[in-house]
């Protein structure tokens, strides 16, 4: 206590202290020289040591170091800018990409115990005969074959009622966009069909009202709907009295039963349904063949399934339990030998992070980006190391001056370390900014054609910390090595150097530093070359994607979607609406032509159906005949979009089979191709119009440049 007071007093009488100490030491020196003993030595260091007894020395020196560090930075602005920028880019890129990867690939669904959830898939060879129709996505597996996660309804009911490994098994299916009228004008909204066990199985509580439950699986139940919390807040003013209101979906009447918990967005981050409807209240027109077809057809694969493991059951156990059951069932549906030869096999996948369309799609690109970001950080660190080494060489003279004036070695080293750390911290702060901006840019790049994209990406502080630590370690290592080096300087020799920083060839240690620098430069150039080459490939890829010959002129085309059917118009009335719209658009000044198509050319889907071509014999029973991707178009589409050299309608059909060959109609000749098999085709859900019959495939999205 007394000591503290004394030290505080010292703060105010510092100059007296300095003077007195100086005088005392001179006295000592004088006496010493009279007595012919050894000289006093380093007076400044002695003074500093004596002084340090009185002060809060650590903090004072730290403040001095920082002040001096800032001055050094300001004195060498180019160095500072280079170091901070390279660190900021390295740290920022890593943090942004890892944050994105975490959000897309790793994070769990916002539900109860997401690690217990499993997704049911089955693996098929190219196309399994028993799966005569499929509605949903399929993914090519790297080893051949593809994964499909859609099941026939009968398989779902069987597994739901008889399995012993899952505490619940529930189904869902994306509806696509529906025409939704709540309390104002109609809007298009993404909807999802779910079974009664969906919300309870996921463990999602209601925020208001009730959610869709087992009772809603009864065919006779009142049609109800559940909306997301965000929709309830944005469109219904978070009004509890909205629950119980009547809403209209594609013209049909539903009761708004409740609101799901905040944050819940469904099970697939790349679909964002705002409204959930009971599976049994599927919307469809009577013209499509009736509800029974979709639920009873054992060859129509459409419902997606998720389950929750019973406590204590592992994923392999559950898979063993379910796969056999599914295999027996699917074998019983096979009618021909061909179908029996090639049955789909069920496998389970962890579902904790949701159905992973998005994840699959972006998995590889993100790893590539991650790798490149890692390289950038490596380059940044090498760059920093090199800069620090170079600067240490140029500051040798300064170090020598400081040492000769009595600075302690530790003090000089600490000064250099402080400067390194200051650089690293500045770099990290700038890096956080780069990361935040980078995340926004990456999200924009990835989502420019996905309207609803529910990846909640925040800055990942752990990654930022990790990158910062790497940068700090680099700073310390490469700040320290030259610092140690510099303080070993032979003071006199270094002072004698005519120019600051002139390297001395005869010192081994300095040669080591320089060869280290050379190695750093070489590795930096090598890494940069790698990145440049990769970037070049990406750019070329992008350029080629943009210059793909589409067969039509894609300039100056405006696109929009509408669906009169969903607003309750009959098929005939819809046709009149579309025709009338086309006429009106054509009449607009500045519009050259207008037409319609049920599928956007080079869009993200296609509809394939069987066709019969005059001259090609009909396939035998159980065999697939020729099929073709079909677009139903309004008048003028081919003429208006055609390239100049391929003017005129062109019919093209592909024959699938052992020898896939294509036949082209002659230019300018209309060729009649009757569509469809005679065989029964089940109804397709609303959102897909089918006039000619046939099976529908929604392919996974076309590759987007990244």
């Amino acid at each position, binding site marked *: 206590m*007394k000591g503290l007071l004394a030290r505080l007093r010292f703060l105010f009488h510092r100059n007296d202290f300095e003077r007195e100490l100086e*005088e*005392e030491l001179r*006295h000592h020196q004088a006496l010493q020289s009279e007595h012919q003993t050894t000289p*006093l030595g*380093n007076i400044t260091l*002695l003074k500093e040591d004596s002084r340090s*007894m009185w002060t809060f020395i650590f903090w004072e020196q730290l403040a001095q170091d920082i002040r001096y560090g800032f001055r050094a930075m300001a004195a060498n602005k180019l160095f500072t800018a280079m170091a901070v920028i390279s660190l900021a880019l390295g740290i920022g890129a890593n943090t942004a990409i890892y944050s994105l990867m975490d959000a897309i690939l790793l994070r769990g669904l916002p539900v109860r115990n997401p690690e217990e959830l499993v997704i049911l898939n089955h693996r098929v060879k190219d196309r399994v005969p028993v799966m005569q129709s499929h509605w949903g996505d399929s993914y090519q597996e790297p080893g051949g074959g593809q994964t499909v996660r859609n099941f026939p309804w009968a398989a779902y009911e069987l597994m739901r009622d008889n399995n012993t490994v899952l505490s619940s098994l529930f189904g869902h299916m994306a509806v696509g966009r529906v025409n939704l009228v709540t309390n104002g004008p109609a809007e298009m909204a993404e909807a999802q069909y779910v079974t009664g066990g969906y919300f309870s199985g996921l463990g999602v509580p209601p925020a208001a009202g009730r959610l869709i439950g087992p009772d809603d699986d009864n065919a006779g139940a009142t049609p109800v709907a559940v909306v997301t919390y965000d929709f309830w807040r944005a469109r219904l003013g978070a009004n509890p009295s909205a629950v119980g209101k009547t809403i209209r979906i594609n013209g049909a009447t539903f009761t708004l039963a409740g609101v799901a918990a905040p944050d819940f967005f469904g099970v697939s981050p790349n679909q964002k349904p705002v409204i959930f409807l009971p599976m049994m209240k599927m919307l469809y027109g009577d013209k499509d063949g009736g509800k029974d077809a979709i639920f009873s057809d054992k060859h129509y694969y459409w419902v997606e399934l998720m389950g929750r493991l019973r406590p204590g059951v592992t994923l392999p156990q559950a898979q063993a339990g379910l796969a056999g059951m599914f295999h027996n069932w699917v074998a019983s549906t096979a009618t021909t030998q061909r179908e029996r030869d090639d049955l789909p096999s069920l496998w389970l996948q962890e579902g904790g992070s949701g159905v992973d369309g998005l994840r699959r799609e972006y998995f590889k690109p993100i790893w590539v980006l991650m790798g490149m970001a890692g390289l950038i950080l490596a380059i940044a660190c090498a760059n920093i190391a090199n800069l620090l080494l170079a600067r240490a060489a140029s500051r040798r003279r300064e170090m020598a001056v400081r040492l000769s004036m009595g600075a302690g070695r530790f003090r000089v080293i600490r000064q250099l370390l402080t400067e390194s750390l200051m650089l690293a911290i500045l770099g990290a702060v700038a890096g956080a900014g780069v990361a935040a901006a980078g995340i926004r840019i990456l999200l924009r790049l990835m989502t420019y054609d996905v309207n609803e994209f529910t990846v909640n990406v925040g800055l990942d502080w752990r990654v930022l910390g990790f990158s910062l630590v790497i940068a700090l370690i680099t700073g310390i290592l490469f700040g320290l090595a030259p610092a140690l080096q510099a303080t070993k300087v032979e003071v006199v020799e270094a002072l004698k150097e005519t120019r600051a920083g002139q390297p001395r060839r005869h010192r081994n240690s300095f040669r080591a530093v320089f060869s280290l620098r050379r190695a750093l430069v070489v590795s930096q150039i090598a890494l940069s070359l790698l990145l440049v080459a990769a970037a070049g490939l990406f750019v070329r890829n992008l350029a080629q994607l943009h210059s793909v010959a589409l067969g039509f002129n894609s300039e100056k085309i405006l696109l929009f979607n509408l669906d009169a059917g969903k607003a309750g118009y009959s098929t005939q009335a819809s046709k009149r609406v579309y025709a009338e719209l086309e006429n009106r658009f054509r009449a607009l000044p500045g519009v050259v032509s207008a037409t319609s198509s049920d599928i956007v050319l080079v869009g993200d889907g296609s509809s394939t159906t069987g066709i019969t071509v005059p001259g090609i014999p009909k396939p035998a029973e159980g065999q697939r005949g020729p099929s073709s991707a079909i677009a139903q178009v309004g008048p003028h589409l081919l003429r208006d979009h055609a390239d100049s050299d391929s003017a005129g309608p062109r019919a093209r059909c592909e024959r699938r089979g052992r020898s896939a060959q294509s036949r082209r109609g002659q230019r300018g000749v209309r060729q009649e191709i009757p569509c469809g098999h005679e065989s029964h085709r089940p109804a397709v859900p609303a959102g897909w119009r089918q006039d000619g019959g046939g099976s529908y495939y929604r392919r996974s999205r076309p590759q987007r440049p990244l």
Partner: protein
Amino acid sequence: MGTRPDIPPGTLYMLILKTLARLGSMHGYGIAQHIHQSSEDVLQVEEGSLYPALQRMLIKGWVVAEWRQSENNRRARFYSLTPEGRKQLTQELTDFDRVMSAIVKVIEAV
């Protein structure tokens, strides 16, 4: 020049206190000289440790300092013991004796 044995750590304060107890008041150089001579030229107190130690003792209140004319008419800072310093000396001597005799026992036990 040869190696000079270092003053055992922790004993410098004791040596300074004892010197001041014997001489009454003395300046830094005198203290160093006295230790040097009474140890028969074995112990050499470095200035680099002497003056910081004196400053530390000032802070602790074991010694006080005043500026006076020295024997050859130079202005010098003379240090002298405070009652607290005396207490500290007794304490340190007791501790040192105990440690020393313990060390001797260890060394001489064969």
